[in-house]
C-alpha cells in the first residue's frame, strides 16, 4: 500500500517538474531574448532601413526586414489559403465518399507537413533556376506557401470536420447545393477556427528562415515589385548574429525581440478573435 502511495506521489511530482520545465522554458526564452534585446532596441531599428556600414555597427534599422517579412507572410498565406480551403472542403464527406482517397490525401498532407523547410527552400531554388527566375519576393512567397499549405489545410480540415451534420443536413433539406452549404453554413460556422488556422500559418511563414534563404534572397531596400529580392526578419537576425561586431550582434538580439513580440501579438490577436467570434456560432 505504501509503495503504491509512494509511486503516486513520485509521479505526480515528476509530472509537476515536467510542467515546470515546459513553462520555465517559455519564460526563459522570452526573458533571455528581452533581457539582451531590449537595451539595444530603439526607434531607429523599426523605422529605418540599413544605412551604409550598418553591418559594421553604423546607423540604420531593420525596417526592410520587418516589411519584407510582412510581405512574405501575407503573400504566402494568401496563396496557401486559396489552395488550402478548397482542399479542406473537398476532404469532407459530401465530396468524397471513398475513404481511401481522403485517407490518401491526408497522408500526403502529413508528409508535406513533415518535409523540412530547408527542403522546400532547396526545391524552390531548383524550380526557380529551371524557369530562369532570380531570388525574389515571388520565389520566397511560393516557397513559404509550400510550407504553409499542409499546416493550413490540416487545421482547416480539423475545424470543418467539427461542423455537425445536422446543420449541413438542414441546409441540404432546404435545397441548397453543396457549394452554397459550404459558403453559407460551413464556412460561416467555422470562421473563428479558420481565422485561427490562417494566423497560425501566417506566424509560421513569418518565422521561417530556411525556406526563404535561397528563394527570397536578402536586400537592404524595401522591394517595390515581386520580382525584387526581399529581406526577412529571421534572416536579418541570423546575418547580424553572424558578424563579429558586438554592436551588430546586439541588434540581432533586438531584432529577435521584435520577432518574438510579433509572434506574441499574432497569438494574442488570434485568441481574442476566437473569443469574440465564437459568440455568434451555433452550438
Amino acid at each position, binding site marked *: 500500500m505504501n509503495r*503504491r*502511495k509512494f*509511486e*503516486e506521489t513520485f*509521479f505526480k511530482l515528476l*509530472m509537476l517538474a*515536467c*510542467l515546470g*520545465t*515546459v*513553462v520555465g*522554458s*517559455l519564460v*526563459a*526564452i522570452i526573458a*533571455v*531574448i528581452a533581457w*539582451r534585446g531590449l537595451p539595444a532596441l530603439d526607434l531607429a531599428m523599426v523605422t529605418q532601413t540599413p544605412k551604409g556600414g550598418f553591418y559594421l555597427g553604423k546607423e540604420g534599422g531593420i525596417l526592410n526586414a520587418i516589411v519584407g517579412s510582412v510581405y512574405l507572410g501575407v503573400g504566402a498565406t494568401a496563396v496557401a489559403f486559396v*489552395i488550402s480551403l*478548397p*482542399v479542406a472542403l*473537398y476532404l469532407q464527406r459530401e*465530396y468524397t465518399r471513398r475513404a481511401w482517397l481522403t485517407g490518401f*490525401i491526408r*497522408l*500526403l*498532407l*502529413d*508528409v*508535406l*507537413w*513533415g*518535409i*523540412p*523547410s*530547408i*527542403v522546400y527552400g*532547396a*526545391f524552390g531554388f*531548383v524550380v526557380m533556376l529551371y524557369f530562369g527566375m532570380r531570388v525574389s519576393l515571388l520565389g520566397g512567397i511560393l516557397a513559404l506557401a509550400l510550407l504553409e*499549405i499542409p499546416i493550413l*489545410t490540416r487545421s482547416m480540415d480539423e475545424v470543418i470536420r467539427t461542423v455537425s451534420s445536422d446543420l449541413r443536413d438542414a441546409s441540404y433539406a432546404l435545397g441548397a447545393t*453543396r*457549394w*452554397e452549404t459550404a459558403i453559407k453554413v460551413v464556412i460561416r460556422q467555422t470562421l473563428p477556427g479558420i481565422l485561427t488556422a490562417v494566423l497560425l500559418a501566417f*506566424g*509560421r511563414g513569418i*518565422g521561417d*528562415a*530556411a525556406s526563404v*534563404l*535561397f528563394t527570397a534572397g536578402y536586400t537592404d531596400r524595401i522591394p517595390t515589385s515581386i520580382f525584387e529580392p526581399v529581406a526577412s526578419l*529571421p534572416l536579418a*537576425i*541570423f546575418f547580424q*548574429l553572424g558578424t563579429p561586431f558586438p554592436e551588430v550582434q546586439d541588434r540581432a*538580439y533586438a531584432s529577435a525581440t521584435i*520577432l*518574438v513580440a510579433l509572434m506574441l501579438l499574432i*497569438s494574442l490577436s488570434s485568441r481574442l478573435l476566437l473569443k469574440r467570434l465564437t459568440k455568434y456560432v451555433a452550438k
Partner: protein
Amino acid sequence: MFGRRFADLLATKFMVVMVALVVSIVLFVGIGLFLKSLPILGSHPLNELLFTTSWKPSKGEFGFLPFIMGTVWVTALAGAIAVPISLLTALYLAEYAPERVRATVKPMVDLLAGIPPVVYGVWGILALSAGGISIGFNVLAGGIVLAIMVIPVVTAIAEEVFRTVPKDVKEASLCVGATQWETAKHVVIRSSLAGVAAAIILGFSRAFGETMAVLMVVGNIARIPSSIFDAAYPLPALIANNYGEVMSVPLYDSALLFAALLLFVVILLFNVIARLVLLRVQRGVA
C-alpha cells in the same frame, strides 16, 4: 436554377484541381530532387555516398556519413529529452490539472510552439553556450534546443489524445481501487497508444529536419560525433550553410540536393510506416 447548379459544379471542379495540385506537390518535390541528384548518384555508388566519411567536395569526395550521424545523434538526443517530458506534461494537463491551471498552461504551450526557430537558435547561443556554465557548440546544445522546440508539438497532440479517453473507463479503474497514477498508466496511456505514437512521430519529423535553430548551436564540424559533447553537422545545416556557394565546384549542388532528397525520403517513409502501424493498432483496439 441553372446558375446555382453551375456554381456548384464549378466549385467542385476547382476543388478537384486544387487537390490534384497539392497531391502533385509531393510528386514534384520527390521527382525534382531525384532528377537533380542523378549526377552524383551516377558518378558515386549509393553505398559510398551513404557510408563513407570523407567530405571533400573540391576533390570529388562526398561521404555523407558524418552528416547522417550528426542528424541521428541530435534527433535521438532531442527525442530522449522531449518525449518523457512531453508525455508527463500532457498527462498532467489532461488528468490531474485543475481547469484553471490547464487554461493557463495550454496557451503557453501553443506560444512555445509558435516561437520561430531562429529565436530558439539565438536563445541557445545566449543561454546554453555563453552562460556561466558553458555547454559549448555541440550535440548536447543542439539536442536541448531541439527538445524544447519539439516538446510543445508532442505535448499539445498527446494532451488532446489523452482527453479523448472516455471517463467511464477511467472511473471503472478508479472504482476497483487503482490510484490516479495507476489509472493513467494502465488505462489512459494504454488506450491512447496509437495517438501517442502519432504525436511522437510528428515531433520526430519536426526535429529531424529542423535547420536554423540546430545550425546555430551544434558546432557544424563534419565528423561523426562520439559523445554528446562533440560537435555535429546535421544534414539540414549542411544544405543551409553551403547551398549559396556551390556553383563553382562540380557535383556540389547535386550532392546537396541529394542530402535534401535523403531528408524527403526519410520523412516519406516515416509517415507511411507510421500510418501503417496506426492502422494496425486501431484495428487491434476496435
